[in-house]
């Protein structure tokens, strides 16, 4: 009823994906998402699906966890299907959009299941590093992101505790009608804001006491280093993106594309 939340969870096992450098993972994710968003090409989608599947299998994370994170988005997908059907969009486009959503969810799940929040932040900081040249405070942004990520489970836990204690006083979210649900929601949001405000104040003070502020320069402790597999994965992603762009720009490769489309659809 209240305990089916699965969000930003690191799954601690040993695997090739866990061993990868966080920067490489972050870079690959960004290239992957960019490629996925700009493409409507079936061949590229097919290749990206295969890449995702290989990475999924190499992550040693049980398949159940991935299916759970995808099934969590089923209402959104249903909504997209309904809207697109009402508007009268081509079935091919609907399939493409759904496939894109599923791939993005699975790919980002691979990233979050195989890297700890600190690793993600490290990767994020590295990806943003070039922006330093134009004066963007990247380490500040990364620190803010760590804190935000760290806050999600805390807030979830707090929200569940408040919902339960309000339910025991008669304002039950799960078992009441619409007006009761609205009231229960507001009775959860109020205390949640107050408590998170209080908590963030405490956190800020605790960090400042230990000289851990955004203005200080920090070094990072790393246990994973860039290796051949990282270069390979990033190169593979770049290759897919590069081939796609070249093909689009120069207009080549339509033969291959048509072959795939014909082969699968007809």
């Amino acid at each position, binding site marked *: *009823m209240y305990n089916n939340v699965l969000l930003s969870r690191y799954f601690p096992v040993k695997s090739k994906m866990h061993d990868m450098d966080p920067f490489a993972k972050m870079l690959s994710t960004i290239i992957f998402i960019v490629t996925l968003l700009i493409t409507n090409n079936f061949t590229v989608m097919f290749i990206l699906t295969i890449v995702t599947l290989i990475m999924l299998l190499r992550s040693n994370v049980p398949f159940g966890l991935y299916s759970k994170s995808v099934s969590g988005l089923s209402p959104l997908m249903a909504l997209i299907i309904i809207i697109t059907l009402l508007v009268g969009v081509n079935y091919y486009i609907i399939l493409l959009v759904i496939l894109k959503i599923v791939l993005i969810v699975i790919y980002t799940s691979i990233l979050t299941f195989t890297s700890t929040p600190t690793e993600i932040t490290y990767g994020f900081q590295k990806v943003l590093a070039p922006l330093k040249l134009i004066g963007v405070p990247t380490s500040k942004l990364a620190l803010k992101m760590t804190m935000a990520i760290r806050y999600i489970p805390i807030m979830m836990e707090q929200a569940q505790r408040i919902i*339960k204690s309000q*339910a*025991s*006083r008669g*304002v*039950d979210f799960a*078992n*009441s009608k619409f007006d009761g649900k609205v009231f229960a929601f507001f009775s959860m949001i*109020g205390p949640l804001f107050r408590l998170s405000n209080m908590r963030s104040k405490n956190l800020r003070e605790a960090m400042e006491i230990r000289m851990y502020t955004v203005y200080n320069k920090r070094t990072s402790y790393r246990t994973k280093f860039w290796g051949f597999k990282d270069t390979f994965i990033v190169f593979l992603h770049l290759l897919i993106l590069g081939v796609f762009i070249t093909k689009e720009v120069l207009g080549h490769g339509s033969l291959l594309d048509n072959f795939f489309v014909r082969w699968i659809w007809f």
Partner: protein
Amino acid sequence: MEIKFDKVSFSYLAGTPLQVDALKEVSTTIESNKINALVGPSGSGKSTMIELINGLILPTKGIVHVGNHRLRNNIRIVNSNQLRFEIGVVFQNPEEQFFCNTVKKEIEFGMKYFGYKVDKIEERIESALKMVGLDNSFLNRNPFKLSGGEKRRVAIASVLAFNPEVIILDEPTNGLDITSKEMLIKLIKLLKTKYKKTIIVVSHDVDTLYKFVDNVIILSNGKILAEGNKFDVFSDVKYLTDNGVKVPRIVEFIHKVKEKTGKNLGKIDDVNDLIKEIYQNV
């Protein structure tokens, strides 16, 4: 009201690789009109048990009998508000749930969901405040600006207001000063003797618990280690300490006296009685 656990198991995130078994085939009966204590280290399943009793979570296996209600896996509770009306729970740090800007509104919050009429609500609020030892001047004060002990008492009053048959207190003495603690213990005793309530107290603090509870259930790793009358449960000190359970200091003292001198000081739960007993024996 009878509360019975019949081979109840509960797992968080059941069916996923992150599954955690909080309770494992627990069977027990909680006696009516008694102060029952649930004791055990963190993660032993105490909070899970009280959430099961209140229908906030449903068992993965087994049945929880609460009066006429039967709570089992995947079966929606027929009348959840009736169940919550009969069982009042005061959670750990109950002041976190405060939502309204006056004590009065805070106590009446949710009461209309239990079908109380407006004139009856006024009456209930005043008697609830009286029960926890606060006067009517508190009604219009801001609950956020009260002291820690007062906040806790307002939170307990907000549960007492709808007059539940069973009252569950999760770590009630946590973070309170000695005066507030004693006040709370007095209130719990009064609820049992005068108002004939069944009380379940969950706590780590065995020394404080031992003073006022009747029955004890000791949980360890989701299983019941020992249960029954407090004197019987804590009689086997060696068994409990071997299993990592902290024994009340008074019990430890009586046990050591018995070991060294052979004298049995008897069933004593209060330090003052113990001092009297020692004087008489000396």
